[in-house]
């Protein structure tokens, strides 16, 4: 078995592919992907900074826009660099639980902001 594995690994080395990975790993295509992601991260970072300096928008609008761009940035890193776009069902299930708990945490935060004692007055 180990001999077989060695031969397979040797062959994999010759063709520049991995034996265990579900999809062949091609060095050049990864280099290209990395370059695109890096350029996209550069652009999104510049865009966030530009939005933060826009003169005619209030802070709530700016915060919303900046967070949207940050989410795009996060999607690029998680989807392409962490391979989340082509992961196993097990990982997606796990992340679904995380999403539910995270939404619950933020939901509680928003609920807490409006949970004032009876008789509270605002000036």
């Amino acid at each position, binding site marked *: 078995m180990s001999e077989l594995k060695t031969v397979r*690994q040797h062959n*994999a*080395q010759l063709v*520049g*592919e*991995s*034996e*265990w*990975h579900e999809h062949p*790993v091609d*060095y050049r295509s*990864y*280099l290209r992907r*990395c370059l695109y*992601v*890096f350029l996209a*991260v*550069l652009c999104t*970072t510049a865009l*966030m*900074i530009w*939005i*933060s*300096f826009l003169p005619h928008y209030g*802070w709530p609008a*700016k*915060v919303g826009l*900046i*967070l949207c*761009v*940050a989410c795009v*940035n*996060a999607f690029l*890193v*998680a989807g392409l*660099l*962490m391979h989340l776009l082509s992961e*196993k*069902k*097990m*990982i997606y299930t*796990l*992340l679904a*639980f*995380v999403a539910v*708990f*995270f939404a619950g*945490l*933020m939901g*509680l*935060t928003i609920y*807490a*902001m409006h949970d004032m004692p009876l008789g509270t007055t605002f000036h």
Partner: protein
Amino acid sequence: MEIPYVVQPRPDTGIYNAKVGIWLFLASEVMLFGALFSAYVLLRVGAVPGEWPHGWQNLTLGTINTLVLATSAITTLLAWVACKVRQFGKFKFFHACTLLLALAFLCIKSEEYREHLTHYEIQLTDGRIAEGDMRENNPQNDYVVIDGRYVADEKELYDLRAQKDPKPEEIKIPRGQIKEMQNYGPWHNDYLALYFTLTGLHALHVLGGSIVIGFLWGPGRKLWETDPEHFTNRVEVSGLFWHFVDLVWIFLFPVLYLM
């Protein structure tokens, strides 16, 4: 005893065990940082209007750090790809790059901390406030010297972006005129407490990730000679953690530097 499924995927999950483990760990990390972001939202929304700091961070250093971390995420991925195609020399090169970039990130972060810790707000007995970088604070002298400016009201200190680039000047203040003096450490206000907590915890993660990457680059690489696929999986797992660290920074940067 042999540990099962360190290379081959487990039949029921379809992935090797360490990968399930790191994703479970990252799930707990999401909740950890989520709790701190939740604290940020609560304090930010609850702050008195106009009294939440803007423009208190060095945007240039923050942007450089964002690019440093993004580049390190790329080099981490390329190190893993190099392992996959069995080019160990390239793996060593890319992992060394990641380590150097991590070191650069921590150095820049330290510089930002130094800037905050040497920046002072001084309340004077006549009601004015002086703020600026401390230049001389020798306890034997009866004065302190700062590079800064005077303001009449504390509210002028909150939104630095709205002000036209205040030119600092050398100010010599006799100690007898000082009512209260405090640097911009985590004790200064809610914003700085959150800034130091969030970025400090993140920096600890960068440090921890660097130690793991350094181990794989140094003593841990012996595994490559006996079981390269197992070693490659270790590189992948450490890479997933590193990408998560980058992911956290993607949200920390706008929240603390831009909003």
